[in-house]
Structure formats: C-alpha cells, structure tokens
C-alpha cells in the first residue's frame, strides 16, 4: 500500500516536472503564433446571378460552387439561376477598389484587415444608374466565404428575376 502511494507521488512529481515547463513554453509561444499575420492583398471574385422563379434550369455548371448556398431555404423560391457575369480582381489593404458591372451597378471593395481565419472587408454597391449607394457595409468573412447582395428585380434578355451579387475574397499576400 505504502509502496504504491510512493510510486504515484513520484510519478506525479516527474510528470509535473516535464509538463510545467512545456505548458509554460507553449502558452507563452501561443500568442506569437496566433497573432494574425497581416494580409496585404486579397483576391476577390464577384458572380452576378439572376434568380428566376420560372423555368427548370436549376443551377448551371459555372455556379456549382454555390450549390450549397443556392439550395438554402433563402433561395427556395427560385427555380432557375443564370450566371450573368463573373469577374475576378485583387484588392489591397487600405486601398479601395471599384469594379463596374454589366448590370450598371458599381461595387467598391476594400480590405480593412484580418485575423487568423477571417478577412475584414468593406463593400459598397451603387444603384444601376450610379446615382446613389444601395448599401455600404463593413463585414468579416472566412476566406472564400460568400456574401450575397440581392439588388432587386432585373431582366436579362427575356428572363426576369432577382439580381444577386455573390462576393468572395481570399487572402493572397
């Protein structure tokens, strides 16, 4: 009995001797590694999507990457999705970029900062005639996460529906 207790105490002491410095070192080192490396540049993509309540087109191949989002309840009212436009561009930290879209809207996008997993961004979408800002938002999002902006009704050719802009950004430098 006594022998067993002594053995346990010895084992505990040895374990503490090994674990304590390691734990201190790990805890001390953690903030340095967890501290987000500043992202100076991000690649962004915008997909302009027309969502229609008529038709049975479903999700076209070029929008398959958005399948999970377009099958969400939020889009349950729409039966067909049409890709109107897709653009890729790069934004730099603290330098607002603006891109013109074929719908007439202009999208301003800024990289404001980042943490380990998310980018902090600012988006500004103008109306189609450019006379006013429809929305101005600061948001943070995981790399390549999608922010959707629905900008009202739209007709493309003979297809009428609702206009969606899918905005994605991911750190690149």
């Amino acid at each position: 009995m006594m022998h067993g207790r002594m053995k346990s105490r010895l084992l505990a002491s040895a374990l503490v001797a090994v674990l304590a410095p390691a734990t201190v070192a790990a805890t001390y080192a953690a903030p340095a590694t967890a501290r987000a490396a500043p992202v100076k540049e991000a690649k962004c993509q915008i997909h302009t999507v027309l969502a229609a309540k008529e038709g049975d087109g479903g999700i076209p191949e070029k929008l398959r990457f958005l399948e999970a989002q377009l099958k969400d309840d939020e889009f349950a009212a729409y039966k067909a999705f049409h890709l109107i436009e897709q653009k890729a561009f790069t934004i730099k930290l603290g330098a607002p970029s603006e891109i013109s879209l074929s719908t007439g809207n202009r999208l301003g996008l800024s990289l404001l900062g980042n943490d380990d997993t998310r980018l902090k961004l600012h988006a500004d979408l103008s109306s189609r005639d450019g006379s006013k800002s429809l929305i101005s938002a600061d948001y943070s999002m995981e790399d390549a996460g999608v922010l959707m902006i629905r900008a009202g009704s739209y007709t493309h050719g003979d297809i009428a529906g609702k206009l969606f802009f899918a905005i994605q950004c991911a750190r690149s430098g």
Partner: protein
Amino acid sequence: MTTKTSQPVTSEELSAYFDGELEAERVDAVVRALEEDPSLRAQHSGLGLLRESVRTSAEAHAQSVPAARFEQIWDQIDRAIERDARLQADANRNASIWGRLWAALRPVRMPVMVAAATAAVVAVVVAPGSNNPEGAPSVAEAPALETTPVVAPELPPRAAPDELALGELAAPSQPDPKLRPMTVPETSEAEIHGIEFGGKHGRISNTGTVTVLYVEEDETPTNSERSL
C-alpha cells in the same frame, strides 16, 4: 333418417328448417317429425349447440382482436425502450472509456491542473507585455482607413465605364478569362460590423449557410443583353 310421416326428413331439410329457410309446405312435416322422432330432435338440438358454439367462438375471437392490437402496441413500446436502452448503453460505453481514463489519471490529476494553472498565470503575466507593449489588437488593421461609423456616401452620377473616376481608387486587375471559382467554406457566414442601406429599406438574412443582404433597386427592371 326417416319418420313415420309419409316422406322422410333429410338432414338438409332439417338444417334448412333450423335456419328458417325451409319451404312452407315441408315445415309442417318437419315439425311433426321432430315431435315423433327423438333422434331427429337430438339432431336438431345438435344444430342449436353448433350454432351457439360458433357464435361463442366468434365472440371470443372478436374480443381477442383488441388484445392482439394491444400486444402490437406493447411490442412497439418494447422495441422503442430496447432501442433507447441500446443507445444509452453505447453512450455509457463511450463515457466509461473516458471515465476509466479519468480514473487512471487520478494520481496525477491535481499536480497537472496546478501546473497548467501556474503556466497560464505566468503566460498571462509575461506574454502581453513582451511583444505588445501598447496592447495593440491582434487583428491587423488598415493603417488609416476610417470604417466606423459607416455612412452611405452619395455617389456621383454614373459615367461610362471608361470614364469612371478610378484615379483615386486602386484599379482592379483584369478579369481572368479562365476564372476558377473559389471553394466556398462549409459555413459561409458573414459577420456584419456596420451597415447602411441607401434604399428605402433593406434587411440582413443569415441562415448559417449563407448571408444575404437585401436592398431594393428601382421598381422598373432594367434590360441587359450583355452576358458572358
């Protein structure tokens, strides 16, 4: 089977009489035969017993149906209880592994916790001051960009794409003709820090899978023939 009457009464006639289906002209003959022939009366009584027996059996069967249904319900309950018990047993089995592990670590449990607490205290006391004396946030921030509060700016009238005032803005790079879509993370959820709707109304919807900002354009749809 004969009687003293002129025409013998057959079993079929007796059965038909018993069921009340015998022709009227033969009923009297059968009645008379029953009065005179004890064996025929016994046979008639046998038919009565048989009918009673069948009726009793049918009633017993009818009474047994609810019991059978009751058994079915109980079977269902039993199966549900058994399934729950099995799931609980699985959960307990999983828990018992951790329980055993926890029990196995009993001798060193307290020293390890003390060491971890000490390490955490040391780290909290030492870490922030050494690398970050001014307590700057860990999130890298843009150097001089005011983001709060967010105000929707009045934009100038839209110019032709070539004439857009991009001089003050960093011009975006050219679109990649072989654009490959980015792989969307499973939880594509935006955290909105500030928002200003320029239209009459707007709203934010966040389902966990996707974040949608709803804004309203002018009511008249715009035509566009441009497409990729």
